[in-house]
């Protein structure tokens, strides 16, 4: 009897949570879509705002972190870009596109800080 109740509760919880997750993800996807559309028109600040909203809404959305990293990179906020890429990769370590973006980003970082330099 207890087992049946537990099973019912689990199923109920799953049934309730699943649409909630779907809602969260679809809200985040809407923000990401809008961000991509405005980025393609060159409105990068608005795009970054949208992608920041997306990762707030759904902190497990790797694509949103990837897009946010690209936005930060375009704005020259390299430390923030690195953190966002690393978050995206932590969520989807085998995503080849995120990995490729990150490799290209690191190449720039190496080029800009590759030599040994010192400022007294």
């Amino acid at each position: 009897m207890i087992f049946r109740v537990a099973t019912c509760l689990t199923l109920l919880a799953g049934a309730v949570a699943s649409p909630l997750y779907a809602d969260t993800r679809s809200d985040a996807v809407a923000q990401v879509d809008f961000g991509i559309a405005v980025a393609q028109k060159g409105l990068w600040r608005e795009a970054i705002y949208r992608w920041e909203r997306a990762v707030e809404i759904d902190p497990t959305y790797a694509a949103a972190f990837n897009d946010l990293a690209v936005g930060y990179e375009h704005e020259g906020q390299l430390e923030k870009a690195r953190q966002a890429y690393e978050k995206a990769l932590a969520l989807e370590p085998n995503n080849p596109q995120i990995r490729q973006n990150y490799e290209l980003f690191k190449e720039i970082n190496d080029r800009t800080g590759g030599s040994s330099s010192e400022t007294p």
Partner: protein
Amino acid sequence: MTEQAAAAAKRRNRCFAALFAIAAGATSACGTTYFEIPIETPIRAKLDVSAFQRVLIAGFVAGGIDDVDANQETVRLLRSQLRSKSSLRVIDADAMELIAVAQEQSRTVAGADDSPRPRAVGSPEEFSEARAGQPVPLPPQIKDERDMEPYERLFANTAYWKRIGEEYQNPLIVTGTVLFMPHSRSGFVSRDVEDYDSFGRRRIRPVRTYMERKGFILRQKFIFIDGRTGATLHSQSHREEVLYSQQQTTPALSSYFELMDKILPDFLQALSSQKIRGTRVLLK
């Protein structure tokens, strides 16, 4: 074509269409919608040069091979780069012969140092301690890093650089060292070889072969000095090398430019902001 064959062809087409639909469905389900987008990453200048309107590429302590006058070539190259890629006005002046300047300064210090020392030097430790205050003799020719090292004291002589700064109305001064040396290395090198397998398919295989190669090493140190005070603001060091096969004959000067080409973006980035163009992928 018989009816049976036509029916078989139709079935095959349907099968392909179904496979394509499944593949397309799987692709969209996996969320692989992506958009390539061009980006321009702005890189801020390492140095704040807002206090300067002009820059003096003074000259370099140069050494290595005699085929290339690394001092003159470096001065000429940096000036032409800065004229087109920096807002600073480039001062036109003869490249300074810093080796001669350093040797002159060393002689002056040695002459002033001829007075008898009050303390007797006994143990090796005391001797080296006593030597630390004395000028290390400068080698007349610079062939490697060891020869170059004692010359670097010249850049710490703030009084000298302040005087140069006053002479040119307080610009930003760029100087440093450049060592362009021949280099050879032998060992196994991996290269791709194209061949065909037993089915006639083209394939590329990595093959390791032993090769003797020769080329050049460029060691470049840029020192940025405040012409108002003579103090060093920033310095950056680079090392690049290029190797060719023994059969290839490349003039030393063209190798020098090939190596400088790799260093220049970093040098320019110290003085002016840059934008690096690239492409990234946005994901849905």
